[in-house]
């Protein structure tokens, strides 16, 4: 779907939102695309910005707001170049359309901690382009050279003449966009790099922010779906007669492999679902048992898998090593559990379809809906609502929660909002895969790793999805092993072998905030800690020595240690542990201070240093780091799903606990503005917290915890 200028104009007339400045935007060099082609191809006419006759400035967001702050951060990029009145700026989610495709990933999506760095040039160019057109419009009005005009705070001026953006918008829209614009020198930035409060704050403290769950319109029905109780189970037959007797229940329809109860409101739909009589065909082979599965993973880990990286002769180097360590680390399935349970509203009208949902994956959702309905993707209008948390769960390659809502609305013949319960969410799959790592490390006389043999066992996230062809490399899912082959600790290891077993199970798996490093960072940082202790060295000094050719890692780790008071002992009964991990182009180093209270691990304080190159909004960076630590800490202390007969045993926050106020440590954040290539901020601070806590627990108790969630042996609980 291409939005032509005429279509946009039409939109502006009907939406009463004011006038639109539409223009061409030439993409800058894409970060992952290597050098720019000599003449970059022009994308279709873009519209990322509307300037209203009331001086309002509306930024259209190609990225979904799910808490990470794009609603503010992308507006800051536009505002920096546009020189508008910041109090007049507001945001909207863009519709689903090719023009809003991710500049690097090529689809409209939000993920990979990429919004700020990937849009850094595009959204600044949007602001600069609009400013150029507004200035030329003013200059033409006053018959003066554009270069003699000044712009500040949403007003163009020349001598005593002044015109606000709103008064110029209409004239500016008629001008040809500039062929190129010059972006500000960083030293002239007024907004980027400053602490800016969130633009979505007011709507989120007075209850007016609209999430997908909040979509209501006349005729919209609510559906609750009975899905297979076990992964691999299939719908055999169902009897809806009892459900249909519930007041408010209107119909019961089959939606794919599930049965949807469509009702006037959620409560009736939920009671209706409870009343369904369904026969499910059990999964072949009895279904996944996590205990048995992990036992199998442990066996697999004893032999090398498919080669990920190899250099040197690992066997020989191991034989020559002075000290040999062998450790195994284990990780359970994890649900994302965003606060807003999944939901999706769908209205089908002939060959057109409208969808309202909080999604991270607009292009994919549009394609799946179109395919189900046999219509063109551009006939699917997608309204992105606020996301009540995403963490990866709202970006499924199968568009699972959108697809089933489309199926339900199609079968029901009425507009339907499918609402998941928390139990549906916890038991609904698309988990962080379970993993087992087995590491053999050989250390030399000085205790340095000289041989490293690392076997990883776990399901692939992308195998079997539409992204397999694009992402799998010679049978290796890079997401399963990221952070290992390129570990900064192993650069000088003479012999290295990283290999991967990729078993298949019926459990659907997915990216979960910070993806592969959720387990690889724990394995690496725990094993390095073990090596430091085996070598009788201070864990900080040992790491800093290994990081001699990684100045950003070393600087972040050293600063975190300094800020946490590493060189002075903690209070009695407490100990500190540390970890550093690069991911999504940023480096996060963390020091955790822990004690054991009432037999439980208590994390008192976390000091985190983040180097993301350029921090556009340090206030948002701090928030993301604190949030990432909380999210990672939930997995470190509590997160675990257990399957028996293919059924998930946990169901809600009472048996799938997460960090609450009482166990949230004070997280102090220090930002290094290194000016290195810009990295992400939504995820990188997630992974280091679990190893930092485990390493602190070791320092305190001499107990090395190698499985997540961390569970103390009884003898350590009383200390």
């Amino acid at each position, binding site marked *: 779907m291409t939005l032509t200028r005429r279509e946009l104009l039409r939109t502006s007339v009907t939406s009463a939102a004011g006038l639109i400045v539409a223009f061409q935007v030439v993409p800058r060099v894409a970060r992952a695309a290597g050098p720019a082609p000599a003449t970059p191809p022009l994308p279709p006419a873009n519209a990322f910005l509307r300037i209203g006759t009331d001086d309002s400035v509306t930024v259209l967001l190609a990225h979904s707001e799910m808490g990470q702050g794009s609603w503010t951060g992308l507006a800051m990029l536009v505002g920096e170049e546009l020189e508008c009145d910041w109090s007049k700026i507001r945001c909207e989610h863009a519709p689903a359309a090719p023009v809003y495709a991710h500049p690097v990933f090529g689809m409209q999506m939000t993920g990979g901690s990429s919004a700020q760095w990937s849009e850094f040039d595009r959204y600044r160019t949007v602001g600069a382009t609009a400013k150029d057109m507004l200035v030329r419009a003013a200059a033409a009005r006053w018959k003066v050279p554009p270069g003699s005009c000044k712009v500040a705070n949403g007003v163009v001026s020349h001598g005593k003449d002044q015109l606000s953006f709103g008064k110029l918008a209409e004239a500016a829209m008629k001008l040809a966009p500039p062929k190129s614009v010059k972006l500000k020198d960083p030293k002239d930035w007024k907004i980027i790099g400053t602490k800016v409060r969130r633009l979505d704050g007011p709507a989120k403290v007075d209850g007016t922010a609209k999430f997908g769950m909040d979509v209501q319109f006349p005729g919209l029905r609510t559906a609750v779906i009975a899905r297979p109780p076990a992964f691999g189970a299939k719908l055999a037959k169902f009897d809806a007669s009892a459900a249909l007797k519930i007041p408010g229940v209107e119909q019961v329809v089959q939606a794919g492999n599930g049965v949807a109860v469509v009702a006037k409101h959620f409560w009736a739909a939920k009671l209706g679902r409870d009343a369904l009589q369904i026969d499910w065909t059990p999964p072949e082979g009895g279904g996944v048992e996590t205990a048995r599965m992990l036992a199998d993973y442990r066996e697999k880990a004893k032999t090398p898998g498919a080669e990920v990286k190899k250099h040197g002769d690992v066997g020989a180097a191991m034989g020559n090593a002075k000290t040999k360590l062998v450790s195994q680390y284990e990780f359970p399935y994890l649900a994302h559990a965003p606060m807003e349970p999944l939901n999706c509203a769908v209205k089908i009208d002939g060959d057109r379809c409208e969808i309202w949902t909080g999604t991270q994956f607009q292009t994919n959702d549009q394609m799946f809906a179109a395919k189900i309905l046999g219509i063109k993707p551009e006939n699917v209008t997608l309204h992105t609502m606020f996301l009540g948390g995403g963490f990866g769960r709202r970006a499924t390659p199968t568009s699972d929660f959108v697809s089933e809502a489309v199926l339900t609305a199609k079968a029901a013949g009425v507009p339907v909002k499918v609402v998941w319960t928390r139990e549906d969410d916890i038991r609904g799959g698309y988990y962080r895969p379970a993993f087992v790592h087995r590491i053999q490390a050989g250390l030399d006389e000085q205790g340095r790793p000289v041989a490293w043999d690392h076997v990883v066992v776990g399901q692939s996230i992308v195998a079997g999805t539409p992204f397999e062809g694009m992402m799998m490399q010679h049978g290796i899912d890079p997401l399963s092993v990221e952070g290992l082959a390129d570990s900064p600790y192993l650069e000088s290891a003479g012999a290295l072998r990283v290999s991967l077993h990729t078993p298949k199970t019926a459990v659907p798996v997915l990216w979960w905030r910070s993806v592969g490093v959720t387990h690889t960072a724990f394995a690496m940082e725990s094993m390095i800690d073990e090596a430091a202790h085996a070598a009788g060295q201070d864990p900080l000094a040992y790491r800093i020595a290994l990081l001699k050719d990684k100045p950003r890692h070393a600087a972040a780790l050293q600063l975190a240690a300094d800020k946490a008071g590493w060189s002075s002992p903690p209070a009695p009964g407490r100990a500190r542990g540390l970890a550093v991990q690069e991911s999504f182009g940023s480096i996060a180093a963390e020091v955790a201070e822990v004690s054991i209270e009432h037999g439980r691990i208590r994390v008192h304080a976390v000091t985190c240093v983040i180097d993301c190159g350029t921090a556009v909004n340090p206030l948002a960076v701090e928030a993301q780091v604190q949030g990432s630590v909380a999210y990672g800490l939930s997995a470190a202390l509590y997160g675990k799903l257990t399957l028996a007969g293919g059924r998930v045993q946990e169901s809600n926050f009472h048996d799938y606990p997460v960090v609450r106020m*009482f166990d949230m440590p004070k997280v102090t954040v220090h930002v290094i503005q290194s000016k290195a290539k810009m990295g992400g901020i939504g995820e990188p601070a997630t992974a280091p917290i679990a190893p930092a806590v485990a390493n602190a627990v070791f320092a305190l108790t001499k107990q090395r915890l190698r499985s997540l969630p961390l569970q103390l042996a009884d003898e350590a609980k009383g200390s």
Partner: protein
Amino acid sequence: MKLDINGTVREVDAPPEMPLLWVIRDLLGFTGTKFGCGMAQCGACTVHVDGQPVRACVTPVSTVGARKVRTIEGLSPDGSHPVQRAWLEADVVQCGYCQSGQIMTTVALLEQRPDPTDTEIDAALSGNICRCGTYNRIREAVHLAAKLSRGGGK
């Protein structure tokens, strides 16, 4: 039955066991109060009944009777309640989904304890889950709201 909500008595046609949450959201259209767990585990649905914070997701509407229900929409006409102002000042929200519940719990806390200690904040707010992990800033905002409520702030 009748429901006194945000200062207005409304007629609702609901089965007696229907949770207050779904009456508020689906029948009356106040969507600021959120559904998070359905079993009083997460606090996203917190509203006040005669000033007391309750979990609307497990409160049968028939048990409310003539008592006054207050939701986030009834807190202030313009977002100017001290707790809301403190939330903005501390830039608390991320995804924002849990924040109506966090704010309603905090308002009730401050009515009982105008200057709560950190321990009292832990006790009052540990029933409200935030998956974005805004807890540090919530704590800061609670203290700030206490100050604003006492007139000690701006």
